[in-house]
């Protein structure tokens, strides 16, 4: 959840609680005041009635005073109510509903005989007042709430804008891009500190990365010449007439090792060059045609291993990429399918507009499939391979945003590249 949403939600929650408590206590206080007022009026009426009886020695008219109604009846001498306040509902046939009343019941002696008086006062007006007040309060609160949340949201958004800017820049930042991280200065102290820390950190990482990259590049390039010298000397040596078998064996081993090193070096240079995005020229590459060319090229190796190739689907697919890299991609995928196959196995090729799949029979992988795309990781230790082919595949896919996926089921390896 975004920090803005979160603070707004908390704000809303707290406001709701405050308003609910405030509203309830306001209502209670209002009611208390009204009851107080009504009760006062009822007591005043009571006093008036008692003094009227004393003066005139008879009951007052029903309509006199403030009270809406006076009910008089003979009191039950066993159960005299001296004074009692209570709420009651009286059905009004005019309004066709129960109307709340406050009633005061008391007993007065006239000519030695107790009479029970009940005077009523309607709470209707007060209830209307309460309702409209609460309603008004509700609208005021609601407006206040919306306004506050809105203002809060925009103020937060404004103050956090540098933070979001920084976040977006870090997200899109990649080391391999040549530019250092540039962040907008902020007037907020915390954000400014964050920016400074990030900038110095990425600056350091970037320069370390550049140094390391330069070192690797130089080493790879400088190794080429000595390798060429060693290889050529051994080759010349091999042409000597009188080599013993033992010497020949030594030379052959040396030659093999130098060749392996040379191939490894070439692959590493290629990887670095892809990382450096040196393959700039792009064109619409006819993948289906390249695929068929590669298959033809590999035909003799495929048939010598007794493999069968099945073209399950071959649609016309044009990818916008470097044609050299497209070749390398297909070459490594096919090599992989041949290399990790068993005698008499099969290779299935599927090329559609959204994916390229190469499936081959072979032994189950020994460990986690994700690691197959790592450098120098070979599925089987016995195989004399460099373990760099799939790393190249991944690098090329990354460069153009395609997604390579590996899976294994029912004795079949499946390597797919999903085009995007």
């Amino acid at each position, binding site marked *: 959840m975004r920090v803005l949403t979160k603070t707004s939600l908390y704000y809303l929650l707290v406001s709701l609680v405050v308003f609910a408590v405030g509203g309830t206590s306001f209502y209670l206080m209002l009611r208390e005041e009204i009851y107080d007022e009504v009760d006062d009026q009822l007591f005043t009426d009571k006093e008036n009635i008692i003094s009227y009886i004393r003066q005139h020695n008879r009951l007052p008219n029903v309509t006199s005073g403030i009270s809406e109604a006076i009910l008089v009846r003979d009191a039950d001498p066993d159960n005299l109510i001296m004074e009692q306040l209570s709420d009651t509902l009286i059905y009004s046939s005019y309004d066709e509903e129960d109307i709340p009343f406050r009633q005061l019941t008391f007993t007065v002696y006239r000519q030695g005989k107790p009479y029970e008086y009940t005077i009523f006062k309607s709470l209707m007006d007060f209830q209307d007042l309460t309702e409209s007040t609460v309603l008004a309060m509700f609208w005021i609160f609601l407006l206040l709430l919306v306004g506050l949340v809105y203002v809060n949201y925009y103020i937060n958004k404004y103050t956090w804008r540098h933070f979001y800017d920084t976040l977006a820049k870090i997200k899109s930042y990649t080391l391999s891009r040549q530019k250092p991280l540039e962040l907008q200065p902020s007037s907020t102290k915390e954000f400014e500190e964050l920016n400074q820390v990030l900038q110095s950190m990425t600056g350091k990482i970037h320069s370390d990365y550049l140094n390391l990259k330069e070192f690797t590049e130089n080493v790879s390039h400088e190794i080429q*010449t000595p390798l060429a010298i060693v290889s050529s000397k051994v080759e010349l040596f091999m042409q000597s007439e009188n080599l013993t078998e033992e010497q020949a064996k030594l030379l052959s081993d040396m030659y*093999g090792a130098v060749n392996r090193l040379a*191939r490894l070096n070439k692959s590493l240079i290629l990887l670095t060059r892809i990382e450096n995005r040196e393959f700039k020229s792009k064109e619409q590459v006819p993948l289906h045609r390249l695929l068929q060319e590669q298959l033809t090229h590999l035909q003799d190796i495929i048939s*010598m291993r007794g493999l069968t190739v099945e073209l399950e689907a071959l649609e016309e697919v044009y990818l916008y990429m470097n044609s050299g890299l497209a070749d390398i991609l297909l*070459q490594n995928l096919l090599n992989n399918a041949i290399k990790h196959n068993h005698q008499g196995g099969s290779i299935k090729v599927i090329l559609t507009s959204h994916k390229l799949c190469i499936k081959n029979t072979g032994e189950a992988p020994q460990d986690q499939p994700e690691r197959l795309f790592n450098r120098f990781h070979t599925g089987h230790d016995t195989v004399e391979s460099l373990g760099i082919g799939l790393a190249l595949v991944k690098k090329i896919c990354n460069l153009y945003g395609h997604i390579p996926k590996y899976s294994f089921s029912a004795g079949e390896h499946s390597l797919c590249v999903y085009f995007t």
Partner: protein
Amino acid sequence: MKVLVIEDEEALKESIVAYLRQEGYLCDAAVDYKSALLKTASHHYACVVVDLTLPDGNGLNIVRSLKENYENTGIIIISAKNALDDKITGLEVGADDYLTKPFHLSELNARIKSVLRRRNFNGHKVLRVGEVEVQPDAAEATVAGKPLTLTRKEYDLLLYFVSNRNRVLTKESIAEYLWGDHIEMLDSLDFVYTHIKNLRRKIVEAGGADYIHTVYGLGYKFTSP
């Protein structure tokens, strides 16, 4: 036939020169840009092998000046840079071929021969070893006049052998020559053996002598009688 090797790395230059001299070429060498320009200006070479990165200049300029003055000279670039762009520029400027270091001397030799053939030096249109004849223009081979039915790879192999006759060819260099970058294939060396076996059999069946010999531990040799 005169060949000039321009390579600043002394040890590598010596290897190339030694190998080419054994091959019967008159071999000259230059270790820097200036002396290379001087040599190309004063002599006419059939073929020039040039390294692009020289201490005092760019080998591409030598290629350009050669193209202007001696259009007929075959040019092969050898470079430590495997950059595709360099390759394309090199070929565009007028080089005939491009080899990336490290390379096999036998491969360089085969490429030189192919360039010379294409440039029609010496009129070596047909390569002949004993009864075996290879016509690179037609991509055909005959044994004692009888055509040999060869697969594409077997023909390439024969051409490679004939270009490097009496030389020990390693399995690695053969594999690389036949499959290029597909060399990474783990058992391509066994495929080399299979191809050689087939080629040998076909030549013998067509009535030729058994020219291809296994050199123990090292590789194969195509010996002329």
